[in-house]
């Protein structure tokens, strides 16, 4: 008798749905994937919910409410492997911009009846709450890397996803460096690869949507970005986008904020 297929669950927290959509965007692979793994709990795609425990949980989104902080604990308990997918789950996402602001003021600005809104003052990654077995980067994640993670799980090995910068991909693609040749501000040297060095190939600087690469030298890059004309005020915004709360970007953002105040 063939062994039962491993059970896959997909979970959503504060996010845009784009990373889980990536699974449905695997147009060529989706149906063959279902031969190898049982999509047991994936509400965006199916009303059928097979009860846990699950062999592999893919978690999208960040934790922004008490209710979600409790929910992720239960999900961890019912998951053999837990993989976060995307910038929200891995670093807190764009909504972590509220970590640098007055959340009550944010609520009053957006919502007419602030009393109805229950939210924490921070947006935090899943790893701040539970043990995470693997973190997949990106806003959004790469389809190829998602399939690699699922394949690695099925074949019981580590995902072959190198912790290297976007620059490496530009060199491999033969894309001329936009910062060297045109003075375009680019976060490629400090940003985790995975997008295929997309922006420079579209004549645009990288804006860091895969978050910091492991040994990101933000201080060195900031000096270079100032030499192409960026101010501290602009640099705060450069570091505070989709991975604002990732430690390396968080520290760089704060440093430029302090610098900007003393200027």
């Amino acid at each position, binding site marked *: 008798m063939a062994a039962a297929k491993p059970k896959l669950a997909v979970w*959503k*927290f*504060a*996010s*845009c*749905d*784009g*990373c*889980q*959509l*990536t699974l*449905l*965007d695997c*147009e*060529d692979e*989706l*149906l063959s994937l*279902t031969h190898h793994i049982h*999509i047991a709990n994936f*509400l*965006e*795609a*199916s*009303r*059928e*919910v097979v009860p846990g425990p699950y062999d592999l949980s893919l978690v999208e989104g960040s934790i*922004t*409410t008490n209710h*979600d902080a409790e929910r992720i604990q239960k999900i961890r308990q019912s998951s053999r492997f837990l993989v976060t997918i995307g910038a929200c789950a891995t670093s807190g*996402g*764009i*909504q972590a*911009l*509220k970590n640098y*602001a007055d959340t009550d*003021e*944010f*609520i009053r*600005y*957006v*919502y*007419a*009846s602030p009393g*109805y*809104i*229950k*939210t924490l003052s921070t947006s935090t990654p899943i790893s701040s709450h539970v043990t995470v077995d693997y973190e997949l980067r990106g*806003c*959004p994640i790469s389809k190829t890397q998602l399939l690699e993670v699922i394949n690695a799980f099925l074949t019981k090995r580590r995902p072959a996803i190198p912790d290297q910068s976007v620059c490496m991909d530009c060199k491999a693609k033969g894309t001329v460096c936009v910062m060297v040749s045109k003075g375009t501000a680019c976060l490629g040297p400090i940003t985790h690869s995975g*997008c295929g060095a*997309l*922006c420079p190939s*579209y*004549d*645009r600087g990288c*804006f860091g*949507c895969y978050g910091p690469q492991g040994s990101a030298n933000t201080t060195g890059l900031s000096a270079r970005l100032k030499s192409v004309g960026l101010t501290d005020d602009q640099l705060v*915004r450069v570091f505070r*986008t*989709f991975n604002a709360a990732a430690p390396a970007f968080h520290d760089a953002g704060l440093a430029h904020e302090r610098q900007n105040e003393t200027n």
Partner: protein
Amino acid sequence: MSDKTRRIDVNYLARVEGEGAFHLVLRGSEVVDAKLRIYEPPRFFEAFLRGRDFREAPDITARICGICPVAYQMSAVHAMEDAAGVKIGGPLRELRRLLYCGEWIESHTLHVAMLHAPDFLGYESAIHMAKDHPDVVSRALALKKVGNEIVALVGGREIHPINVKVGGFYRVPSRNELRALIPRLEKAFAEAITLGQWVSTFDFPDFSFDYEFVSLRHPTEYPFNEGRIVSNRGLDIAVADYEKHFQEQHVAHSNALHSVRVGAGPYHVGPLARFALNSDKLPTHLKDFAKNAGVWPVCTNPFKSIVVRAIEVIYACDEALRIVRSYEEPDGPAVSVDPVDAEGFACTEAPRGSLYHRYRLDKGGLITDARIVPPTSQNQKTIEDDLRRLVPTMPTDNDELLQWRCEQAVRNYDPCISCATHFLRMNVVRQ
């Protein structure tokens, strides 16, 4: 006993984008209460857009929705260009329409084949449906893929494109790059017709309502990025006047705020509305298709939105082919747009309906005020009203069937709850 009060609670609404629920309280076939509840946590986009550079808006607002990022980028860039008094024409305008065609093909096909069709055939999901209809599902996936290929070529990638810029694009495709799409688009066009014919054969509940339909209308085109906001009840306004005519209101039965037309009440945006108000702009072959499919010239049965969505997929393939065949490369990838102390407005047609953006900018080009009204929030009241109207038409002795049919009725709108959240008020029932 038929007068017993009973509840139908669907706590996790499946096959929609985002986290929603609905609750019905029934006495016999009478609906005591119907609520579409949004529990997706708020993300505060309008709040943190303040202080950001106007050129950042397309990248930031894309992150409101991974399903329709192009819609957010299009509304954002058009609002910024409106503030600056810049109008984009020629090939850049055509490329923006092409990008939108890609998103309509991708998003609509996902909904038609993967999220909505399983309801009509009694399957839990498209993956279950694929066991009996492998050909339908794999061909729909191939069609969806062509939509994604357009977005990836013009926008850089399928989800959260990187190539959209205030003033145009960072890089525009060459004529040859676009022409390479032609064979796949021709095949997609044929597949879209097949998909449309297939969904037209479904059994549709006998249910319709005289909605106020609201959409953009353009003098010469089926609308994507430009036009006036019109309705079938005589509304005809400039986009800049949107907030004078539409507002969010508290209603007695619910903590949720609903978007209504001032002095008129709930309204309906999305494919049914666009089609009702713009069907005269469709090419003849699509008018004939709509006649044969029984939706011409106006369709008021929301369950048949699946047919109209499929018609819009055919249209998007047709329009994409027209643009790709006639494309001439522009002089540059973008026109220059300078910071300006002004306010800008835009409304574009997301797959799910009209998406309104307003921004106030200071002289340095920083955003000082932002307002975003997504289509699902505009449809929320109409979705609840549909549930109230639908339940009395259903047998009272089968709650399982009733629940499924109500879920299907919500899915008629392809609701995108991730989009709606940052604006929808959480409807918390406190008892």
